[in-house]
């Protein structure tokens, strides 16, 4: 098979060219302050290619923060449905294997009891270009969940750094192959691999817990005092869930005047106090640790019952954004230890 390479400047040029096309949506890494965000680009967006990991995940490219699902007008003749914005072909550049690994998980969810055609159509039209990892930090734990710093799951093209200035492009899917063939001019250079380019191996991110053992403990310990101990400092915002590549809860809101309206699918989060509040005023998850317990239990237990996979890719984003100091890896490791004790 042919080998494909692309330089940083050609990648920038390619993304800018695609982003100038109003028929497409392109997402790439943009710097703000000390951090990088995967952001929607236009032809003028300044890309940042020198970063460890973006604050947000690639989620919002495919599952937008908000999205109209119904528009209508009231006429004397009756209700008239208005056109929704078309779902355009997408290119998403700059996630890591822990971002892309969320794609099959989310696909299972959005094609489960109801086929969410907004998500599924975007998924059909997206090309996901992933950067294999060259760096890690103490929050990374993809290998504990079957992932890898150079994993291909969910990507269409995987870029592996071979020189300071460029990557080798690995075709992962048919969509990826088609993308490279269509834009072959950008992938023609041959880059001689340089020595000393860092490459992260699986063993560089040691496995830190066993997820099946974690699940077993969660199933039996809903009322365990550990939950309160590890998550009482959670102050119940949605930062962790909104940067998470696999958190997928949404709310439906209506915005209407007398004669027209729009119904919107809108991100929501189990960590927010209002999420489970009943009309009566009762809240079955009234305390912050109870809400955080839900977040962990959903990912590490309930989701497995439904889809046979942990709904976490080990990207560590939730821990990085949490300024209340709630750290998912610490908590899951603690649970694993408790579970081990129970096995003896």
């Amino acid at each position, binding site marked *: 098979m042919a080998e494909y390479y692309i330089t940083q400047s050609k990648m920038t040029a390619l993304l800018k060219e695609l982003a100038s096309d109003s028929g497409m949506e392109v997402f790439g890494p943009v710097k*703000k302050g000390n951090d990088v*965000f995967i952001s929607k680009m236009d032809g003028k967006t300044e890309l940042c290619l020198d970063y460890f990991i973006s*604050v947000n995940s690639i989620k919002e490219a495919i599952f937008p923060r908000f999205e109209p699902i119904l528009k209508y007008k009231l006429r004397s003749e009756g209700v008239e449905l208005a056109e929704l914005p078309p779902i355009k072909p997408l290119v998403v550049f700059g996630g890591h294997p822990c971002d892309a690994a969320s794609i099959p998980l989310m696909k299972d969810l959005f094609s489960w009891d109801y086929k969410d055609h907004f998500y599924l159509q975007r998924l059909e039209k997206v090309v996901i270009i992933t950067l294999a990892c060259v760096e890690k930090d103490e929050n990374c734990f993809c290998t504990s969940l079957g992932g890898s710093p150079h994993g291909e799951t969910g990507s269409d093209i995987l870029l592996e750094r071979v020189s300071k200035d460029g990557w080798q492009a690995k075709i992962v899917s048919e969509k990826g192959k088609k993308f490279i063939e269509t834009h072959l001019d950008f992938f023609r250079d041959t880059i001689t691999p340089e020595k000393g380019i860092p490459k992260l191996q699986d063993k560089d991110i040691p496995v830190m817990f066993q997820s099946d053992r974690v699940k077993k403990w969660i199933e039996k310990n809903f009322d365990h005092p550990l939950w309160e101990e590890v998550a009482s400092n959670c102050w*119940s915002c949605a930062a962790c869930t*909104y940067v998470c590549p696999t958190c997928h809860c949404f709310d439906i809101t209506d915005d209407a005047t007398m004669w027209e309206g729009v119904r919107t699918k809108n991100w929501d989060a189990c960590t927010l106090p209002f999420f489970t509040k009943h009309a009566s005023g009762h809240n079955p998850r009234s305390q912050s640790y109870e809400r955080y317990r839900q977040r962990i239990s959903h990912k590490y237990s309930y989701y497995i019952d439904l889809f046979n996979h942990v709904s976490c890719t080990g990207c560590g984003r939730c821990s990085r954004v949490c*300024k*209340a*100091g709630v750290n998912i890896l610490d908590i899951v490791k603690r649970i694993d230890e408790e579970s081990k004790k129970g096995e003896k």
Partner: protein
Amino acid sequence: MQELVKKAKELIESKEVDLLIGYQSDGEKGAKPLFVKNTQQAEKLIFNQYCLNNLVTYLKRPDVKALKKVAVVAKGCDIRSFVMLLSENQVSRDAIFIIGMTCDHVVSPDGTGENEKCTTCKVHNPHLADVVLGAPVPEKIAKDKPVHYAQLEKLNAMSQEERWAFWQEELSRCIRCYACRQACPLCYCERCIVDFNTPQWIDTRSNPRGNFAWNIVRALHLAGRCINCGECERVCPANIPLMLLNQSLQEEAQEKFAWEAGYDPESQPPLTTFRKEDDEDFIR
């Protein structure tokens, strides 16, 4: 920090408090909140320049409010927010034990150098506490010197159109996670304005309309109340410079009402009181 651990153990052992909220270390250069319920946990307590969290924010939580007495480790700046909770009748003084820490400065949110907020601090030594720990720190600014935030100058120099463009760009990143609200010690409404949904008062979509409405409403609700702890901006995952809004309103409160929030629990915040001598040149 033996003093702190000793005091904490004393409070827990004597059952004077049901819970103590303090700091524990989080890596070499970091600290995070710690909930202490027994003497063993108290061993982990620390206090240093990495203790950025304003722990007073936990006092607004229903489960914490339900306790008989709670101790909280607080810097002077954090105590200013406690003073606001007192003057707004949100906490009972007897239900809280303040362990005031003297503090020269804390680090900036990115961990490099002195935090900007410390350069305008007038309470390096706690002004209201049940016990003060740490060596006294010389105050650098006189109590009656009006506040001025240098970073506002750039914003104020912009034309209206430039400011509009600036905020459009900044607020476009808001994902409506409400970390600002949850971290804020003074955002204590049992039902937030964004949670009024029959009908929806504030657009919950993170579109320009929703994001402007949310962030401006929050800033206005904090007018004359914000004590410049900077937590909203620090916890914002989208790096939005929220303190520009809050500081701008702090300067307004200073200019219009000669008011700085959080120093005197006996005084009344300008927006909750009426004084005949207030000039009303803003009513035209």
